[in-house]
C-alpha cells in the first residue's frame, strides 16, 4: 500500500520536478542534464514574443479576476438574500459553472460572441459618423469575458461560504445600532468578507493565467502565455519552455498559497463560559 502511494505521488510530481530541473540545464537538450545554469530564464524573458504573451496573460488575468471579484461578490450577497428555494437553484448553477469542461465553455463562448458581434458590428457601422467604422473582434475583450464568467463562479462560491458563516444577527445588531443598510455593509459585512474576496480574486487570477483551452477558442489573434508555450513545443521542448513553465508554476503556487492563507478558518468564535 505504501509503495503504491509512493508510486502515485512519484507519477504525479516527477514530471513536474523534471521540468523544474531541466529549466536550469546548461545545455540545449531537454533530456540530458549537462550542468546548472539560469541562462534559459534570461533567454525566455528577453524573447519579445514570449514577453508579449506574458503581458497579454497578465492583463487578461488581472482584468477578468477583478471583474469576477466584483460581480462574484455582488452575486454572493444577492444569493444570500434569496428565498431558500431560489438560493438552492443558484448555488447549483454556480457549482455547475465550475465543473463545466473548458472545451464546452470555449465553444459556447465563441459561438455566443460571434453571434453577438454579428449583430453589434453592423449597428456600429450604421451609426458611425466617419469613413471606416471600428470592428469589434475577438481579442482581449473576448478572453476577459470568457474567463471572467467562469472565474466569477469561483469567487461567488468562496464569498458565499463566508457570508453564510456571518450570521443574520450581527447584521441586525448593526441596524439596531442606527447603521443604515449601506453603513452595515461597509462597516460590518465588507471587513469580514474582504479576505474571502481577495482569496477569490487570487484564485480567479490563477485560473485565468493558467487557462489554455478557453483562451485557445476565443482569443482571436491574441496569444496568451499558455498558448505560446503550446505553440513553441511544436518546435521541440527546449529549456526555455521549461523555464517559462517553472516561472508560471512558482507564481501560481504563491497565488494559491495566498488564497489558502486568506481562507483559513478564523478564531473569531465566541469562547464559552
Amino acid at each position: 500500500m505504501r509503495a503504491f502511494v509512493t508510486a502515485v505521488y512519484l507519477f504525479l510530481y516527477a514530471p513536474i520536478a523534471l521540468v523544474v530541473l531541466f529549466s536550469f540545464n546548461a545545455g540545449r537538450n531537454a533530456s540530458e542534464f549537462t550542468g546548472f545554469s539560469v541562462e534559459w530564464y534570461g533567454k525566455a524573458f528577453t524573447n519579445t514574443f514570449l514577453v508579449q504573451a506574458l503581458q497579454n496573460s497578465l492583463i487578461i488575468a488581472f482584468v477578468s479576476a477583478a471583474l469576477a471579484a466584483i460581480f462574484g461578490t455582488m452575486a454572493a450577497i444577492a444569493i444570500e438574500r434569496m428565498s431558500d428555494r431560489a438560493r438552492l437553484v443558484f448555488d447549483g448553477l454556480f457549482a455547475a459553472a465550475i465543473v463545466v469542461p473548458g472545451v464546452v465553455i470555449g465553444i459556447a463562448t465563441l459561438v455566443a460572441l460571434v453571434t453577438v458581434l454579428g449583430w453589434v458590428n453592423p449597428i456600429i457601422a450604421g451609426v458611425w459618423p466617419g469613413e471606416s467604422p471600428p470592428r469589434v473582434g475577438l481579442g482581449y475583450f473576448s478572453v476577459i469575458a470568457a474567463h471572467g464568467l467562469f472565474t466569477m463562479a469561483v469567487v461567488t462560491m468562496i464569498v458565499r461560504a463566508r457570508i453564510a458563516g456571518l450570521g443574520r444577527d450581527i447584521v441586525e445588531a448593526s441596524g439596531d445600532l442606527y447603521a443604515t443598510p449601506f453603513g452595515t455593509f461597509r462597516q460590518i459585512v465588507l471587513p469580514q468578507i474582504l479576505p474571502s474576496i481577495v482569496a477569490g480574486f487570487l484564485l480567479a487570477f490563477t485560473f485565468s493565467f493558467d487557462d489554455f483551452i478557453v483562451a485557445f477558442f476565443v482569443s482571436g489573434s491574441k496569444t496568451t502565455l499558455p498558448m505560446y508555450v503550446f505553440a513553441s513545443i511544436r518546435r521541440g521542448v527546449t529549456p526555455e519552455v521549461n523555464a517559462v513553465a517553472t516561472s508560471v508554476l512558482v507564481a501560481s503556487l504563491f497565488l494559491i498559497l495566498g488564497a489558502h492563507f486568506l481562507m483559513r478558518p478564523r478564531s473569531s468564535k465566541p469562547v464559552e463560559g
Partner: protein
Amino acid sequence: MALANVHGTSSAKGPAIDLSNDIEFRAVTKRYGAVTAVAGIDLAVPKGAFVALLGPSGCGKTTCLRMIGGFEQPTEGIVLIENRPMNGVPPYQRPVNMVFQHYALFPHLDVLANVSYGLRQMRPAIARAEILRRSEEALELVRLGGYAKRRIHELSGGQQQRVALARAIVNRPAVLLLDEPLAALDRKLRTAMQFELQTLQRELGITFLLVTHDQEEALSMSDFVCVMHAGRVAQTGTPREVYDAPASLFVADFVGKTNHIAGVVEPGGVFRLANGAALAAGGSATGSAAAVLRPEAIRLHPDLQGEGLAGTVTHRIFLGSTVEYAVAADGLGEFLVTADRGKTDQTAAPGDRVRLSFDPAALHLFPAGTAQS
C-alpha cells in the same frame, strides 16, 4: 384590556410610574403564511418600567420583541414607541436598542469599537472625545473598565454579555430590549446578572423589556410580567399577582410549580374531590372544575388527626432551606409539597403516613376545559 390592567396595578402595588407608555401594541397580529405567531395583542409598557414577556417557546414573545426592534413588521395593528406609530420605520430609525440572545457582537472590532458603534452612526456626528467618554462610562457601568482594547473572542461568555449590554445602553435608548439575555450563562452567573440588570435599570431609568421563557427570571427582575400563550396575552400583572392569582390554568402551570386537583363544584360552595372529600369553594359557577394549589401553601403534619387529606410520602428532596416532598394522597394522586425550614415539619421520610392541610383561600378554581385558554 392588558393596558388597563397594567395601569390599574401600577398605582396600587408597583413602583411609582409615569403614566405615558414607552411601548404600545394596538391589536397587533403577525402571520407567517398560514402560521399566526401573534394573534391580536394589546400591550402597554409604561415608561421606566421593567417588563417581562414570559411564555414557552413559540408563544410569540420573541416575535413581539422583533416587531418593536423593527426586524419584523406587524401583519395587522400598530406598534407605537414613545407614542409614535412605528409601522414601516426601519430598525436604524427606532429609538430602541436590543441585547441579542447570542450577543451578536462584531467579531472584527475590539470591545471599545463594539460599544461605540451606535454613537458613531449618529447624524449629526458626535465629537470623538464625547464618543470615547460615553463609551468608557458605559463600560464602567457594566464593570468592564479595563477591557476597552480586548478582542471579543478573548472574553468569557459573561463578559461578552456585558459588552452587549454596554453597546446597547451607551445610546441611552428609550427602551432596552433584552432577548433571553441570560439563557447562555451558567446558573451562578445568571443570578448575579439578574441583580445587575435590576440595579442598572434603576440607575439608568430606561424602560427594560425582557423576553424570557424562564419564569424565575421574569418574576425576580420585573415590575410587570406579561404571560403569553399561543400568540395571545394570558395575563398581565405584577409578579406577585401573576403568581398568587393566576388568571388561567395555563398561567398557574407555567408560572411556578402547581398541584392539580380535579373535582366538581356543587351548589352551596362545596368543591367535591374524587375521593369524596369536600372543600370550601368560592364563586357561583357549578360543574366539574380543576383546582390548582401551590406546593408551599400545603402544610405537612405527622399526626393524622384533624382537617385535611391523608397520604403517604413517596419522595423527599433536600434543597437546603426547603425540602420538597412528593405525597400520594389517598384516592387523589400525587401532591408536591414544599416544606420551609421552621414553618412546617421536615422530618417525614418516604413511606411515612402524613396529613396535608391548607388554607381554602389558597385554592384557585378553574372551570374544566380551560387549560388551553
